[in-house]
């Protein structure tokens, strides 16, 4: 009898613990802000234009750390056991690593009103939703573009081929980032269909060898691999680079500074990013984190972010707000026809051993990092 009671007690206590753990995973309501919010974000993702109003409304003081690559983002969020940040604006190639590394916690979407206004493609994309559990709220997205100085090009280039063309030796710049391998893979998928590359993030060893060979040839033509967006802006300003792979953000910044640059999505298509705001598994300020996500998901901030960075909002209601802030910008950034445009971009995702076709012959991300080091030498 005594044994039975003990067992019963233990069982009920454990049930209570489990229930508590679930409650801790998914908060039922957003409480009062804790007064501080630690943000790890892309350069340009926590602008005063929307940070200041947020601080005033919620009393959550925002502390920012900017990064220039997904790898840097992952490294920074893992530092100190993941206690150093509350929210992170992870791209698709970082998001899965954060989920599998248990660095982020599930998000209760019923506390995010803007969730219902998200583009259907971004409600439960594979990069932030695993087995039906949401680990992030899709934010904004955009393409990696081809950018050039119009003084150096009388005819506008339409193919990524210019970045592998000896005619532009010493005037090319590309990102210093292992995920850049996917750009070369996308190009090779078009010029060498016999390699059989179907997804630029799912490469077998022979395919990777071909891509690395192409990128090693490119190294001789590259002036500098840029690590931060501001590096590339400097290179174009000084005239050291005339053509390169860029984000719309650099093109906007350079045009504002009077440098004659143009940009396009080449005929081969483009890689791109789709970012999600995620909450640290060890967040010390979870209420401020939810408040922040709800703030940046409002049509107004979505439009401000889209215009300052040059990307497309995930919230479909941001279109009108974009046109109000800058007439014609909704159409310019495809916020009105986003689904069709969305389908043309190969979004960053974490390369894994498992290929999409059920085979296990693809190279994982650590192999990509080693390959990138071989390219750079």
């Amino acid at each position, binding site marked *: 009898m005594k044994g039975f009671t003990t067992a019963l007690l233990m069982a009920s206590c454990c049930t209570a613990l489990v229930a508590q753990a679930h409650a801790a995973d998914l908060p039922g309501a957003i409480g009062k802000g804790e007064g501080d919010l630690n943000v790890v974000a892309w350069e340009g993702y926590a602008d005063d234009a929307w940070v200041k109003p947020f601080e005033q409304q919620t009393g959550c003081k925002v502390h920012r750390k900017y990064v220039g690559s997904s*790898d840097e983002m992952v490294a920074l969020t893992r530092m100190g056991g993941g206690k150093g940040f509350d929210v992170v604006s992870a791209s698709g190639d970082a998001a899965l690593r954060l989920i599998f*590394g248990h660095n982020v916690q599930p998000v209760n979407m019923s506390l995010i009103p803007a969730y219902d206004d998200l583009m259907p493609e971004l409600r439960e994309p594979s990069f932030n939703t695993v087995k039906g559990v949401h680990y992030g709220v899709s934010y904004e997205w955009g393409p990696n573009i081809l950018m050039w100085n119009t003084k150096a090009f009388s005819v506008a280039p339409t193919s990524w081929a210019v970045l592998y063309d000896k005619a532009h030796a010493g005037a090319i710049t590309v990102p210093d980032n292992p995920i850049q391998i996917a750009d070369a893979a996308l190009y090779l998928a078009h010029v060498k269909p016999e390699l059989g590359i179907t997804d630029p993030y799912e490469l077998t060893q022979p395919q990777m060898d071909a891509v690395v060979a192409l990128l090693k040839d490119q190294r001789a033509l590259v002036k500098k691999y840029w690590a931060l967006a501001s590096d590339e802006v400097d290179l174009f300003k000084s005239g050291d680079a005339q053509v390169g792979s860029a984000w719309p953000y650099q093109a906007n910044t350079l045009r504002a500074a009077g440098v004659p640059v143009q940009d396009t999505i080449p005929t081969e298509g483009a890689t791109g990013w789709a970012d999600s705001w995620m909450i640290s598994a060890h967040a010390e300020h979870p209420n401020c984190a939810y408040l922040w996500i709800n703030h940046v998901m409002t049509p107004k901030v979505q439009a401000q972010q889209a215009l300052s960075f040059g990307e497309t909002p995930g919230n479909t209601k941001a279109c009108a707000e974009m046109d109000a802030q800058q007439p014609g910008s909704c159409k310019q950034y495809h916020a009105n026809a986003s689904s069709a445009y969305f389908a043309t971009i190969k979004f960053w995702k974490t390369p894994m051993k498992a290929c999409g076709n059920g085979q296990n012959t693809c190279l994982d991300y650590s192999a990509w990092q080693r390959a990138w080091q071989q390219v750079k030498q």
Partner: protein
Amino acid sequence: MTGGRKLLGHVALLLPPFGWLTLFYLGSLFILLLSAFWQVDPMSGDVVHDWTLDNFRLLVSDATYRIVAQRTIGIAALVTVTDILLAWPLAYVIARKVGPRLKLTLLVLVALPLWSSMLARIYAWRLILGHDGVLNWFLRAAGLPGQSFAFTNVALWLVFSYLWLPFMLMPLVSALERIPASLLDAAGDMGATPWQTFRTVIFPLAIPGMAAGSVFTFAVTLGEYVTPMLVGGAGSEFIGNVVYANVGVSGNVPFAAAFSMVLLVVIGAYMLVARRFGAFEGA
């Protein structure tokens, strides 16, 4: 009795510095050595504490890391030779040819750049060497073709040579100062030509100064990663950059530790050689 107390006093005096060294310096080196034999789980980024030689195997089997190490050591050696050549004439003039007031002025001028931020000086070189930079502006004004050294290993060599020149100059000046004038007079009296005097008297006596200077130019260049990041281009990676990328970007501390061990071994070996040439004798 007093002897015992004296010994205790000595121990108490030596304990803090040695404790400090052991705990912070040797302790961190030991952890570095240990983690070089660990691995990182690629998906979660956790360090897996299984003993493995994979990091070292990759270092040896992948030509990339040999090329990076060769470049690092090669440029560091080139910078050392360049700084020795550049430092000699000026050091000789400062040490033996000018009066005390001019000497002080010249030494202050040499040290002056060290008072400004190293980053600012490196960025200044970007402005000098850039495509539309100061150097090309002068070259074009003189009707000469422009250079394109920016973001190449040539730029790296120039900037490193510039950065560490004072550190070669100072020890060389002090070595040359300490050569007694009587030795030079004696050489002259024995009928040595100026060149013979230089070759057989001055140069050998200046070797400890050059060795001390090279500890800075060679060893510090070896461990650099900021300059290659800022003025280097495609194909300018140093060991330090690979280490930095593995720690701060990939989160692969074990591999970074393994590559750092290579750096430690090279620098350790170099220190032994420099000591043989008298780099650490007197000052």
